[in-house]
């Protein structure tokens, strides 16, 4: 393998390939930073540009776009409280409060360092642990997917620490919205109120833009007399090195979140949107000061950004070993491999090892390059955005929301749905409902429903069909994790009380 890796580096370290990686990184960063343009869309949009390239070069460019797009989502999450991609939902929780405090530049640097770290860990796993990890993923059946969704929902107890009841209610609303449209099993049309346009369901990205972006712009408008700009900037000398040291001191958070990202990436259907929230939840749970999360602490950004970039490597593991795409952008890469006559699966490593190792190592190089590219463009973007007066920024964000929600399925109905959900999101925000749990429900709804119904169908062969949820070891692992996750904030409070008594 070492020989193959060295050979792969030989392919990559040429001026042409390095320039291609840089171009891919810039393209990915811009796509990621624009709300509505997901990594899947960016990779899909730019596939035709790779037709004239040889398979290796095409994969290198698309890999760089994918990696940078996931990272670029952090920019808009930090600067305008809108996740550029669903993988950056959790970054809004602490990134935007930091930007409002004038620490946007620091937040972007934290996101950059954490993304690079997570990306590298994901690629290392991809390189060394592909086959065994892919075999674990294959053991996940419908009951496990259902329990995984339940585990994901329990994250709300950490996300909505101010009012857990409202958090879970928001999550349930998200779950219900996710059921609008055609049922995944059976094909029933549900909750469309007679509008055929709703039969395709509510597109996740449209809902994300609505719930995160519109309430924020409307809040900007209501507070336009208080603030002329989004935030005042603090220019600090030595911020680059100081922030780097701060991030690197948090090895536990970085490594844990990167491993979470890799594992979630391996599971087909989950991806960065789930990984960043699971990693955030774990960071809150492990922290000695969980109450500070959501107020603008770097640990929150480290968790979400390292995990979502680790998903890139993780998602490619089942693609190259089993021929199963781990995340939606991997499905596009699957198609690209087929276009170039390469069949994703075990034979990729045996028959086309030169191409696959070059692709893996190019992801590594792209991740390293993301550091200078991200630092330069991220700081530049930050300095530009914070200088734009609200009278220009608010309409410009409206403009981006319209482009983003239209471009998903090329119809105006989605734009109306986005606005409607945005107004609903604004009303819920005024009622102190956080958009995080609602979108978590939206993300996990389809995974949970599919697992739930398929498991019930599987359970028909048992004397009691509901036992299907409790008779598999992996299900029990997830059940225990869910119970621990649900009860953790309560346990922490109890422990804290105990400690206070001892201190007294």
């Amino acid at each position, binding site marked *: 393998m070492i020989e193959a890796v060295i050979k792969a580096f030989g392919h990559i370290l040429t001026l042409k390939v390095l320039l291609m990686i840089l171009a891919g990184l810039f393209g990915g960063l811009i796509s990621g930073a624009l709300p509505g343009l997901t990594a899947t869309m960016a990779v899909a*949009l*730019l596939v*035709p540009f790779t037709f004239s390239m040889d398979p290796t070069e095409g994969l290198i460019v698309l890999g760089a776009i994918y990696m940078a797009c996931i990272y670029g989502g952090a920019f808009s999450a930090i600067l305008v409280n809108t996740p550029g991609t669903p993988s950056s939902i959790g970054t809004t929780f602490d990134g935007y409060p930091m930007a409002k405090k004038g620490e946007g530049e620091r937040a972007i640097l934290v996101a950059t360092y954490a993304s690079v770290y997570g990306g590298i860990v994901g690629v290392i796993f991809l390189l060394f642990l592909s086959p065994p990890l892919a075999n674990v993923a294959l053991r996940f059946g419908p009951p496990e997917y259902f329990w995984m969704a339940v585990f994901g929902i329990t994250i709300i107890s950490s996300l909505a620490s101010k009012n857990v*009841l*409202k958090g*879970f*209610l928001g999550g*349930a*609303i998200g*779950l*219900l919205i996710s*059921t609008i449209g055609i*049922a995944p*099993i*059976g*094909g*029933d049309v*549900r*909750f469309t109120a007679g509008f055929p346009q709703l039969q395709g369901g509510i597109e996740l990205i449209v809902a994300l833009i609505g719930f995160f972006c519109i309430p924020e*712009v*409307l809040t900007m*408008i*209501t*507070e*336009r*007399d208080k603030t002329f700009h989004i935030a005042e900037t603090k220019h600090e000398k030595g911020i680059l090195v100081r922030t780097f040291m701060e991030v690197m001191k948090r090895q536990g958070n970085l490594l844990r979140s990167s491993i979470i990202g890799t594992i979630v990436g391996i599971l087909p259907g989950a991806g960065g949107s789930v990984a960043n929230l699971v990693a955030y939840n774990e960071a809150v749970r492990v922290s000695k000061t969980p109450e500070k999360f959501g107020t603008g602490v770097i640990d929150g950004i480290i968790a979400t950004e390292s995990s979502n970039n680790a998903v890139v490597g993780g998602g490619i593991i089942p693609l190259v070993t089993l021929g199963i795409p781990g995340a939606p952008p991997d499905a596009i890469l699957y198609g690209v491999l087929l276009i170039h006559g390469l069949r994703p699966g075990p034979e990729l490593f045996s028959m086309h090892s030169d191409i696959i190792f070059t692709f893996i190592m190019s992801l590594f190089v792209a991740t390293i390059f993301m550091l200078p590219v991200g630092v330069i463009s991220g700081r530049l973007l930050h300095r530009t955005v914070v200088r734009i007066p*609200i*009278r*220009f920024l*608010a*309409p*410009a964000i*409206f*403009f981006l929301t*319209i*482009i983003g929600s*239209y*471009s998903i399925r*090329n119809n*105006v109905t989605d*734009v*109306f749905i986005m*606005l409607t959900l945005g*107004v609903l999101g*604004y009303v819920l925000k*005024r*009622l*102190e409902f956080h958009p995080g749990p609602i979108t978590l429900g939206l993300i996990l709804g389809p995974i*949970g*429903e599919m697992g*739930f*119904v398929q498991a*019930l*169908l599987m359970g028909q062969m048992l004397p009691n069909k509901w036992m299907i949820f409790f008779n598999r070891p992996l299900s029990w692992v997830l059940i225990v994790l869910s119970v621990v996750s649900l009860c953790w904030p309560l346990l922490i409070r109890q422990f804290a009380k105990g400690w206070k008594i001892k201190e007294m």
Partner: protein
Amino acid sequence: MKADRAASVVFLLASVVFWTQTYGLQYNGFVFPRAVIVLIILLSAGLFVQSMGRKGDEQKAFLPANIPYVLVSIAIVALWIYFLNILGFIVSGVIFLSILTVIIDLGKPNLTAVLKVVAVHTALVVAFWVTFHLILLVPLPEGYLI
């Protein structure tokens, strides 16, 4: 807390409406949504009880001070979306972006300022149109104009 109480009642009523919509569906189609609806009913009831128990708690005013601006902005964006496929991406974009900027601006608009706003937004919209429509070939709304 009044707002919470009202919200919990709205959620309860919405749950009932959604429940009635599940009649006529097959088992595989309604089993999951009904489970979620039951969850919403329980949580809404919990929120109602919580709001009754915390009468003294302060909650920020539901309606913000500048609510007319919010409502006007929502109405303008709704009109913008309606006219997207009639006026086209560029024309509707420039018109509605400029209107929004003038409305949100705190100062009294004069002709020079309005022309500056229109120029800025024309540049923004055209830049996006060229990048997305001409270079990346992303379909954008097309009306009778451009």
